[in-house]
């Protein structure tokens, strides 16, 4: 065991120290962990968030640029034709939709790809082996996804300011809906990541489930454009409420009641949290 070195100024002032006597030797007793491993939860959250931020070009800049491209091509394709959607000017409709789209997609990707990567590289043992309960793991991953999604959403909103220069109508609700959407998709990404055995599986979930559901839930068009039968199905889908809620937060107009939206999202997050907790508790595909 190496004793910690004394700080340099102590050396210059009092001559050579007589031996590591400036700090007490670290205690070898087991750390007492209460009902919640706060340090562990914080460490898991921060580790994964920093991993996301380290590749910010892929996790923040690229989604923001893609949203700008979408806005640009829609504006150019629309040209001089005027279009109102759900009572909003088309830009005021599209920009919040794109922000919500980025939040949802980023929330899913951050957990899904991280879990698959860790599983394939064998690094998942770092999480499983740590003194974290299943509940703490689920919470750590979901919070990380939500924060990562909000940061990307914020960057996207700033990048889209040239298309819709307006102060958000309801910033508090906007943040709440983005947070709920990030949590929800982070948990879905966790389920997908745990289930997937290889990259193919998770990218299939992404291309064939997540992207189609998000695209068709009101990012680019109001649901009244859909045939009535499909519309009813779409309105059962919590993703629709996230998009609609984010639109309410930015543009101040929504198709659904924001409180209903929050209730649906809260219910979805709770159910998904329970599912993830069950999966991690049982060691599904993680433990023999």
């Amino acid at each position, binding site marked *: 065991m190496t004793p910690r070195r004394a700080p340099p100024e102590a050396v210059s002032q009092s001559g050579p120290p007589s031996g590591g006597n400036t700090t007490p030797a670290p205690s070898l007793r087991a750390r007492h962990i209460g009902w919640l491993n706060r340090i562990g939860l914080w460490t898991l959250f921060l580790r994964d968030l920093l991993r996301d931020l380290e*590749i910010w*070009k*892929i996790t923040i*800049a*690229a989604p923001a*640029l*893609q949203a700008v*491209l979408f806005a*640009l*091509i*829609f504006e*150019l*394709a*629309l*040209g001089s*034709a*005027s*279009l109102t*959607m759900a009572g909003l000017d*088309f830009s005021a409709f599209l920009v919040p939709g794109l922000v919500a789209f980025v939040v949802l997609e980023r929330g899913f990707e951050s957990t899904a790809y991280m879990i698959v990567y860790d599983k394939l590289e064998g690094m998942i043992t770092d999480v499983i082996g740590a003194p974290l309960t299943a509940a703490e793991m689920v919470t750590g991953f979901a919070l990380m996804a939500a924060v990562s999604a909000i940061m990307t959403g914020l960057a996207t909103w700033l990048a889209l300011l040239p298309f819709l220069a307006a102060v958000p109508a309801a910033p508090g609700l906007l943040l709440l809906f983005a947070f709920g959407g990030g949590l929800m998709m982070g948990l879905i990404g966790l389920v997908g990541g745990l289930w997937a055995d290889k*990259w*193919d599986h998770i*990218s*299939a979930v992404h*291309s*064939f489930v997540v*992207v*189609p559901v998000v*695209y*068709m839930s009101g*990012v*680019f*068009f109001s649901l009244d*454009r*859909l045939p009535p039968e499909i519309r009813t199905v779409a309105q059962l889908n919590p993703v629709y409420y996230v998009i609609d809620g984010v639109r309410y937060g930015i543009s101040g107009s929504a198709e659904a009641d924001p409180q209903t939206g929050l209730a649906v999202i809260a219910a979805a997050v709770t159910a998904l949290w329970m599912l993830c907790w069950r999966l991690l508790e049982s060691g599904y595909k993680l433990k023999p």
Partner: protein
Amino acid sequence: MTDYPAPRRIGAVNWLGLWTLYVKEVRRFMAVATQTIAAPMVTTLLFLAVFSLALGRAVEVVNGVPFAEFLAPGLVMMAMVQNAFANTASSLVISKVQGNIVDILMPPLSPAELTIGIALGGTTRGLIVGLATLAGMWMFVPFGIHNVVFVLFHAFAASLMLALLGMIGGIWAEKFDHMAAVTNFVITPFAFLSGTFYSIQRLPAFFQSLAHANPFFYMIDGFRYGFTGVTDTAPMLGVAVMVTIDTLLALICWRLFVAGYKLKA
């Protein structure tokens, strides 16, 4: 005395080696066809749905062509070029990162044969994705064909161009991040903004003249001309531009392989 077989004589072209390289490149993406063919097809059909649902009522006609019929060829072209690029780029970067690039550098293949084999692999992926996407769209948008020669020429020339660009990118990139950056910040913007979704007559005059210096514009416009018979420029000019660009890019790739740039010590 000599029992061992004589070495295989290789003529001017190593046909067997070239064919083997090509088949290896094609099997590489066919092994993950859900990711490399089905996924882009679904995404492209979603784009068609989203644009038709969002703008269908406001934009009925572009250049005298119904909006969906205008959009469909552009989207097919976008899917083709993105996948042709992704194929050669990811093939080379994965080989370099994993170290199995020696498997293509060591065999008796000349730089020209390497260029052709890998480029045709990427072109094939572009064409297969294009065909799959086109078949999917046909169910929703009943479009006709005005001139099949233009359709085939631009499908091939554009896929080849992006396969060659992907090869240059793949040789240059040292890790996946580099490739992702090129895809996200160069290829996607070009594929999106070069007339896939709108006629360039919509652009301000300055950007319109800029578009005429952009090969992506000619490939999309020429391909669309093959279907609709309507164009923003002279059709034969597009053909000339594509032939020139493809030749230049092939020469660059060939030079890179000759020099061993980032491939040989």
